[in-house]
């Protein structure tokens, strides 16, 4: 490392309250593991974690230990990762495309994921070798690639999209791509799904954390951490888009590269999350807006705040989805909207700083 870089590194100071974010997240994770149809005491959870991670040897009820480790904790961790990843994806797209309605599914990712899932689950693609998640992941990436190709072709072609700003082209191409893949999904379900399969697919599409295990966290956790790192790295570029892409360019931002890297990154993160837990709505749209009201538009603070709020919100929504109706788990997408809409209304009416 050269002397200059060392100097610059030293100049980056982390605020003194940084530890509150992981602390809040930890408390949320513990609460997510403690609350459920059988309530489990927090000290039991700590004992189980100590046993598993630190090789400690506390006496814990085996069934309780199993519920906590294999079921609730893995679920809370994946929920946190999805919440953080989706919220950050929405934040990035809202900033880059300068559209308050942008959400992670804008570029056809949820529609493509559902087509992929349906192809595997209903049409029997892959002959049982490909899992539902893998199918959804491939569908999501295919849809995103198609939307980006369409947006590029529209801008450079001589048709109706010629001369369109890049942000507008992406949004319109996303609408076209989403419609196409949603129609494909509906077509496949109508052609070959039984009523039972159709119901299962619908539940999956609204978001479902029931089947989540530690293997899912192995993919969701790196994706969420990568999202946080990429967003923090590009925080000044994201700020510079406040007055539009041209203004960002005149302030030294390589607009095409930043847009390309960030959009591809959030699309991949969203695809990972959707393929694990389905298309959970509302988090990616509303959490970034709520955080803008609370901590302001500067991404140095907005990125950690959005990631944390998304994670905590999703853990809370998952807990509620498990305990709201006794003996039944509701789709988490229903809960995110049921809690999120009034919460957001409250922030809209009462929230406020500059």
């Amino acid at each position, binding site marked *: 490392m050269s002397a200059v*870089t060392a100097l*610059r*590194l030293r*100049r*980056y*100071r982390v605020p003194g309250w940084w530890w509150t974010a992981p602390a809040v997240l930890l408390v949320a994770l513990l609460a997510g593991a403690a609350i459920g149809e059988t309530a489990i005491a927090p000290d039991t959870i700590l004992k189980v974690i100590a046993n598993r991670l630190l090789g400690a040897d506390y006496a814990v009820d085996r069934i309780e230990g199993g519920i906590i480790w294999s079921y609730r904790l893995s679920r809370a961790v994946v929920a946190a990762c999805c919440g953080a990843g989706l919220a950050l994806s929405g934040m990035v797209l809202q900033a880059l495309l*300068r559209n*308050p309605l942008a959400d992670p599914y804008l570029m056809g990712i949820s529609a493509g994921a559902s087509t992929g899932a349906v192809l595997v689950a209903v049409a029997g693609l892959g002959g049982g070798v490909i899992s539902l998640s893998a199918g959804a992941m491939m569908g999501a990436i295919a849809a995103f690639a198609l939307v980006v190709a369409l947006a590029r072709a529209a801008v450079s072609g*001589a048709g109706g999209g*010629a*001369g369109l700003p890049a942000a507008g082209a992406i949004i319109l191409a996303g609408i076209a791509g989403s419609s196409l893949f949603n129609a494909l999904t509906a077509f496949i379900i109508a052609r070959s799904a039984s009523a039972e399969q159709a119901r299962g697919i619908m539940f999956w599409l609204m978001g479902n954390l029931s089947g989540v295990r530690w293997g899912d966290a192995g993919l969701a956790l790196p994706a969420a951490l990568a999202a946080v790192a990429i967003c*923090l*790295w*590009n*925080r*000044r*570029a994201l*700020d*510079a888009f*406040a*007055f*539009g892409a*041209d*203004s960002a*360019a*005149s*302030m*030294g*931002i*390589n*607009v095409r590269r930043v847009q390309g890297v960030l959009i591809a990154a959030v699309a991949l993160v969203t695809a990972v999350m959707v393929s694990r837990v389905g298309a959970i709505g509302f988090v990616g749209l509303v959490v970034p807006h709520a955080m*803008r*009201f609370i901590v*302001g*538009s*500067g991404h140095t603070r907005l990125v950690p705040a959005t990631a944390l709020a998304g994670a905590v919100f999703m853990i809370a929504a998952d807990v509620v989805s498990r305990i709201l109706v006794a003996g039944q788990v509701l789709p988490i997408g229903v809960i995110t909207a049921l809690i999120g809409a009034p919460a957001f209304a409250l922030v809209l009416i009462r929230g406020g*700083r*500059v």
Partner: protein
Amino acid sequence: MSLRAENLGFQMARRALLEAVDLEVMPAETLGLVGPNGSGKSTLLRLLAGLWRPTYGRVWLDGRDMRGMPRREIARTIAMVAQQADTGERISVRQAVALGRTPFLGPLQDWSAQDDAIVADALARVGMTALAERSWHSLSGGERQRAHIARALAQQPRILLLDEPTNHLDIRHQLRILQLVRELPITVVIALHDLNQALSCDRLAVIDGGRLIALDTPEKVLSVEQLRDTFGVHARLLRDPQGGEPVLHFRQLR
């Protein structure tokens, strides 16, 4: 320090917006760009700022081809105030001006006291220190334009490009902006609509139909013949009976 356009041309959707412009901006001068609507003033400014890639020709900055330069490096020398740059973000004036420090800050660098001082100085130069904590959306059109200029000044540019900064402003704010720009000790290229305001530039470039058709001192460029041919108006150059400043009077051509 020099900025030079060499045989510069730009096409969009197969329409030529700018054709074969050769132009050298002199150090510390105020160069005005005048021309009818759609003549290519904004296009030329965007090419000079490196925001668009020329279809042909080159822009030279300090003897280097701008195409080979990183955006960040260009932005440390050239700042631009475009038309109608607005935001939906809820930011304060100070935050908006602070964006001007972007080309000097890396991902691992923190905001420093020096950056604070530069932002404060930029705000003071446009007379907006008292409004620094106001929200952007509460500003009037003239205040927003001044804040934009402060944001550009926070880039500490040696060249400032302004695209019709007095548009939509009342006369008092127009004069204030022009006064502010005139007093800057840096090179300024400014697109202007009001030809009387253009008279106070050091030199004027007349653009029409994407071509540079005249480049000289205001008195020579804004001649009766030139104004008739380019703008389609009849003009007379008068002198203010009190101070002797030149004033253009326009009539429709018959």
